[in-house]
């Protein structure tokens, strides 16, 4: 399940939806990304924008890729857009499988690729200014490690 929304999400509700009545699920891993302070400055919030249409198709491809690499019972990806205040949730990736390794690794894989391929852009609001967040080289490195596996 893939959703782009402005509203907050409820992790425990999403867990119930993903697991449902499926008896074969033995492991669920969830990652939640949040709006946090900068290293040297308190952040007021973020504005997140995306490319409607392309976002959904890129996320669907990432989930499909993960489904091919690991044996998964289910995947949920929810990403919020619009203005998000300090401490608010931004993104949820939840993976379900029979065994824990598949769930851990696929969740990590989807997040690494989401950060480098899904068309979202963040603008950071601090007391001083509003500026676009720059892409991090570390994120490119994180995604490149999956190519060798």
């Amino acid at each position: 399940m893939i959703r782009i929304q402005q509203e907050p999400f409820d992790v425990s509700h999403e867990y119930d939806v993903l697991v449902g009545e499926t008896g074969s699920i033995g492991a669920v891993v969830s990652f939640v990304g949040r709006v946090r302070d900068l290293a040297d400055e308190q952040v007021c919030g973020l504005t997140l924008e995306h490319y409607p249409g392309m976002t959904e198709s890129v996320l669907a491809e990432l989930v499909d890729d993960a489904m091919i690499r690991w044996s998964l019972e289910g995947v949920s990806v929810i990403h919020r857009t619009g203005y998000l205040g300090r401490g608010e949730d931004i993104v949820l990736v939840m993976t379900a499988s029979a065994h824990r390794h598949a769930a851990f690794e696929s969740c990590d894989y989807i997040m690494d690729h989401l950060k480098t391929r899904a068309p979202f852009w963040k603008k950071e609001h601090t007391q001083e200014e509003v500026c676009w967040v720059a892409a991090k080289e570390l994120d490119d490195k994180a995604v490149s490690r999956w190519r060798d596996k």
Partner: protein
Amino acid sequence: MSLTHINHRGEAHMVDVGDKSVTSRSATATGFITMQPNTLQLLVDGALPKGDVLATARIAGIQAAKRTSDLIPLCHPLPLTHVSIDMDIDMTKGGIHVMATCRTDGKTGVEMEALTAVSATCLTLFDMCKAVDRRMVIGDIRVNEKTGGKSGSWSREDTVAPGNAVPEEKEDAAGSSMSTALLCVRFFGEARDHARAGMLDINIEAVEPLTVAGLKACLIARGDFDPSRLQAGRLMVAVNQKMTSEDHLLSPGDEVAFFPPVTGG
């Protein structure tokens, strides 16, 4: 303006070019052949039954250019000094872009040679692939540019005024009803801060060459977009919502988006 191949009695005739001056002339024509994704993949893998498709099609285009006057009744034979054929496989659009450039030092233009080269290249691609794909469509064959001669340089970009444009032919057999002469250009993230608007329609005739890089140059020249002001080091591009590179060839109706590296999550 009158038709030069018709004489005062309304009969077809060959124009006397004896008094025309010898100038260096060139012409570029393009076309597109639509194929199934599987066919394209076989072609890329070199796995088609008739062998190296692109190399054969290129030779066919060159040979055809040289024999244009044999095929087109009122076309003068002329000594070509150069013929080049470029083919670009486009997985997104599902087909191959074909471009031919012909040059001569002579008294008549070489646009018929360029058109013939594109046509023969496309026909050869069709012939080489028809064993696995009968649904291929050849289309969009046109002259894009010519230089030299009495009329000087000509390119589509300079000549078609909005509202005075020749109606575009249907893009393919499926034929979309939307205006096919436009590119839809979008800007996201920081790129939008340096663009005239978040979304612009650009007439395809204004873009030369018809690639992402050509479009970017056109946007900069018109003052629609100033990527030099980007804080982000890189500018990314997506065509029809798929990430691609600046050498990507564009087609009418494409949606082209410019944006900085993504920062979601």
